[in-house]
């Protein structure tokens, strides 16, 4: 087959392959509408390299619930039989991810995943895993998909979003030009212009129309396929229909059994509607297969599916079939019982492999077939649906399924399992943002179970402890946590780990010196239990808790570990939260450039609401202080999101940041009533940092409020002991807060100090306010402020000038310096002149004589 107008695409692929072969792995996304020729381009490319590089292809299925890990099963079947068998069993996906990667990078390879718009979640996770680990791998990974079918909420779009920051090349396959269509029409009577308009240059569509040879052009591509199909003899037409119900085509042996006369297969092959590679018989294109399948009369379609099902299950001993396919045919055949059986099997497999959306769908299909029976099978299916829904991010659906399962378990006489389901219903509600309802449920469950000996009671107390910690009910969290530990079985490591997680996190806000030890106990237990998510949660709490109480060294250490752990295990949600908190710590310790960089990264990708709130507050605060645009929009969004959570630890920083915005703008405190309300919450939770911060804001607003237990620097500030407050902030490592206290102090000396420190931090707006205050005092000489010298250099030299200066001091001539730095002599002349000017000297020898003070940082 001749490929028209694909040379530049093939050339781009060659470039990518060259890069990959040199050891820098590449991900290429090849996109285009159906029929545009993505597979043809890839086939040509792979043929060109069949002899010099290893090539392997995997296909995603055009099924509503495809084979989990389908394309990688395909790849493994040609490369590694052990892996092939392992992938076909219900294996834990993360265990095989490294195996797949090692296999694909063991030698220079082109690996293609076709039709990723149909990819299941397990495949998407594995693609993300591979794409993040391409450095130093001689692998060209090509993923093809129909861009027009991948909208904003499509799971593939979400997976690609997780790869922001990785090197990805996007290649789009365009339609054929009019000239190319003219070429194709050359020997025919079909008018090229009309055909090009009709088809948009879509190669499949064009060739379908030309193959029918009709004088009147069919209106749609489906029409043209069906027109071609109608040219077949009736028996051959029936054969075509039989193949159309096989989503990935069928083995010749299978197709032979499906039809009355095997020679009709040849007729279909000759017509070009079907193709074969020797082993499989397939349609030329999925578009054609669908067109024929959809055209089938319902009864005919059902009977074909039933026949296929019978044939493939008969062969099942020698040739095991993926349960998703079995379920597909059973459903097509209208066999309710078999559909349920296979759907359950497919669901379990999908769930084990992490294809959660598909697992949920299969469970739903199975549940539809199970009606309202009070059976164990149905209860298990409901619990499976709930687990899959949670993992697929649909916590609301999970809560409902757990509720139904709990009721059913009671009917079945299993109160312990019913209690477990109700507990999970509550955690699901929590994930769904319905914290108050979740708390009510858990509290009720604890009361109910407390009297008896349910094994679920310990877990219920642990969950209660977590909920109370998140609500900053410190005392309640610690007591519930200890009760959980009392009741937990000795080997229930996960339960104990969760309890210590809650206790330790809560201790940050009441007895912070004990928090780390408690959380580390939880960490050890979580490692024993092998619970990756719990480990992540505890690492994050170690970091964010320390950060919330301004213990920055501890916070930074644990947050960095949390970020590493989450990256290694692809736990994006918690990883982003840890990153946002790392940014917060950098903000409060005065490294605003790094803080803005990390926070921007979190904001620019889809992330949990809590991560977004923290990151937006950081970025917004930095913009306020620098006088940069979009400060209000960031902080307004942060506040809206925070208000929706209703949690003290979200409301307080967002409200404080908005207060700061108004304060630097016009010296007023915006919305003191709101700050007052949040202060009430802070006092109720005995959160010394929130109490202090909000108390100071209210005193700026001229409102005297009792602020029991305010943290030391705030307490000092509130009684007017500015020097103690400043000392406290400096000891904590908060340069901005220290400068702010000096500014509030208001004397000329402290204003000058504050001005210098604000300038150092890049806080242009507070610096301006300082200057205004100094002018009002009538101060004689107000420093103009060093223009941001390029790079932090004492004499204001740029990095390049610094380099040149070093050579000047060694006595090199301008020509020699130019040659050392590979610059033109004229450029060096320019730099030397600038150096002399900045140092205030008039000759090289004077400059050389100057001893350069080393940069203090």
């Amino acid at each position: 087959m001749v490929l028209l107008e694909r040379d530049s695409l093939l050339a781009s692929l060659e470039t990518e392959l060259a890069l990959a072969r040199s050891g820098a792995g590449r991900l290429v996304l090849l996109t285009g509408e159906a029929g545009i020729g993505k597979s043809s381009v890839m086939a040509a490319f792979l043929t060109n390299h069949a002899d010099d590089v290893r090539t392997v292809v995997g296909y995603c299925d055009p099924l509503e619930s495809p084979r989990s890990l389908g394309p990688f099963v395909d790849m493994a079947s040609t490369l590694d039989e052990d892996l092939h068998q392992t992938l076909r069993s219900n294996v834990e996906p993360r265990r095989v991810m490294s195996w797949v990667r090692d296999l694909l990078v063991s030698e220079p390879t082109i690996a293609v995943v076709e039709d990723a718009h149909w990819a299941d979640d397990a495949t998407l996770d594995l693609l993300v895993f591979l794409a993040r680990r391409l450095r130093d791998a001689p692998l060209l990974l090509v993923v093809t998909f129909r861009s027009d079918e991948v909208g904003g909420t499509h799971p593939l779009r979400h997976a690609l979003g997780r790869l922001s920051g990785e090197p990805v090349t996007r290649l789009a396959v365009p339609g054929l030009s009019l000239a190319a269509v003219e070429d194709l029409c050359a020997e025919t009577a079909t008018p090229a212009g009309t055909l090009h308009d009709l088809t948009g240059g879509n190669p499949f569509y064009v060739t379908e129309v030309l193959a029918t040879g009709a004088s009147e052009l069919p209106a749609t591509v489906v029409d043209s396929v069906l027109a071609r199909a109608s040219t077949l003899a009736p028996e051959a037409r029936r054969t075509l229909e039989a193949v159309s119900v096989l989503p990935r085509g069928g083995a010749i042996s299978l197709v032979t059994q499906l039809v009355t006369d095997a020679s009709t297969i040849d007729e279909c092959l000759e017509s070009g509607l079907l193709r074969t590679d020797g082993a499989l018989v397939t349609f030329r294109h999925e578009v054609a297969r669908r067109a024929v399948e959809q055209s089938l009369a319902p009864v005919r379609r059902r009977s074909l599916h039933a026949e296929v099902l019978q044939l493939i299950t008969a062969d099942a001993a020698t040739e095991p079939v993926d349960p998703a396919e079995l379920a597909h045919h059973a459903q097509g055949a209208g066999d309710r019982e078999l559909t349920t059986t296979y759907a359950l099997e497919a669901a379990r497999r999908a769930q084990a492999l992490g294809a959660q959306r598909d697992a949920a769908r299969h469970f739903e299909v199975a549940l539809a077939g199970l009606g309202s029976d009070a059976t164990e099978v149905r209860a298990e299916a409901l619990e499976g649906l709930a687990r899959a829904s949670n993992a697929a991010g649909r916590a609301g659906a999970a809560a409902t399924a757990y509720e139904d399962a709990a009721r059913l378990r009671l009917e079945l006489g299993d109160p312990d399992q019913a209690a477990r389901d109700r507990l999970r219903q509550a955690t699901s509600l929590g994930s769904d943002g319905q914290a108050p309802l979740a708390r009510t449920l858990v509290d009720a469950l604890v009361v109910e179970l407390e009297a008896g000996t349910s094994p679920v009671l310990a877990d219920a107390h642990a969950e209660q402890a977590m909920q109370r910690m998140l609500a900053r009910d410190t005392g309640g969290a610690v007591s519930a946590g200890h009760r959980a530990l009392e009741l937990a079985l000795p080997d229930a490591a996960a339960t104990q780990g969760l309890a210590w997680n809650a206790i330790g996190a809560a201790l940050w806000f009441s007895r912070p010196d004990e928090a780390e030890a408690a959380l580390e106990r939880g960490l050890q237990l979580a490692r024993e239990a092998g619970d990756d998510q719990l480990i992540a949660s505890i690492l994050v709490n170690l970091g964010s808790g320390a950060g919330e109480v301004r213990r920055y060294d501890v916070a930074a250490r644990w947050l960095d570990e949390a970020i590493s752990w989450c990256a290694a295990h692809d736990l994006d949600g918690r990883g982003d939260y840890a990153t946002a908190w790392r940014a917060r710590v950098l903000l409060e310790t005065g490294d605003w450039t790094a803080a803005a960089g990390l926070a921007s990264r979190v904001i620019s990708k889809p992330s949990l609401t809590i991560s977004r709130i923290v990151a937006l507050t950081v970025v917004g605060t930095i913009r306020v202080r620098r006088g940069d645009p979009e400060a209000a929009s960031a902080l307004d969004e942060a506040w809206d999101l925070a208000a929706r959570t209703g949690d003290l630890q979200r409301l307080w920083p967002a409200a404080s940041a908005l207060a700061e915005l108004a304060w630097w703008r016009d010296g007023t405190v915006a919305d003191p009533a709101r700050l007052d309300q949040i202060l009430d919450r802070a006092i109720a939770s005995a959160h010394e940092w929130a109490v202090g911060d909000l108390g100071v804001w209210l005193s700026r607003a001229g409102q005297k409020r009792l602020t029991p237990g305010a943290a030391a620097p705030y307490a000092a500030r509130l009684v007017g002991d500015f020097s103690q407050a400043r000392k406290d902030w400096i000891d904590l490592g908060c340069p901005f807060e220290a400068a702010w206290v000096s500014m509030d102090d208001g004397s000329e000396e402290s204003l000058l100090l504050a001005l210098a420190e604000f300038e150092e931090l890049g806080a242009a707006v507070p610096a301006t306010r300082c200057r205004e205050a100094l002018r009002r005092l009538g101060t004689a000489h107000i420093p103009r402020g060093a223009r941001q010298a390029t790079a932090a250099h004492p004499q204001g030299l740029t990095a390049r000038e610094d380099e040149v200066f070093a050579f000047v001091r060694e006595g090199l001539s301008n020509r020699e310096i130019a040659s050392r730095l590979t610059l033109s002599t004229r450029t060096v002349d320019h730099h030397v002149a600038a150096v002399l000017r900045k140092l205030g000297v008039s000759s090289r020898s004077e400059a050389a004589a100057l001893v350069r003070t080393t940069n203090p940082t």
Partner: protein
Amino acid sequence: MPRYLVERTFPDGLDIPMDASGRAVTTAVVGNNAQQGVTWVHSYVTPDRTKTFCIYDGPSPESIRQAATANELPIDSIVEVGVLDPYFYSAAV
């Protein structure tokens, strides 16, 4: 993507020679900008070349600052702007 006006001060006067080294400087600037998704549209310069007012397109104020740091360019202020042109209002139809 927002448009920003960036004010810069060069106490010694900005000097980008109209030759190969100057071209190298501007090419490097464009390259560093691209890393941050920032586009330098054009700049207005005072006759003594001590102040410039530069028009940039970029995703955020932080990206403008990162690019400026990479290019060793000072920033006095960043303001978000839109375009207003007298010809929008001419010849009422």
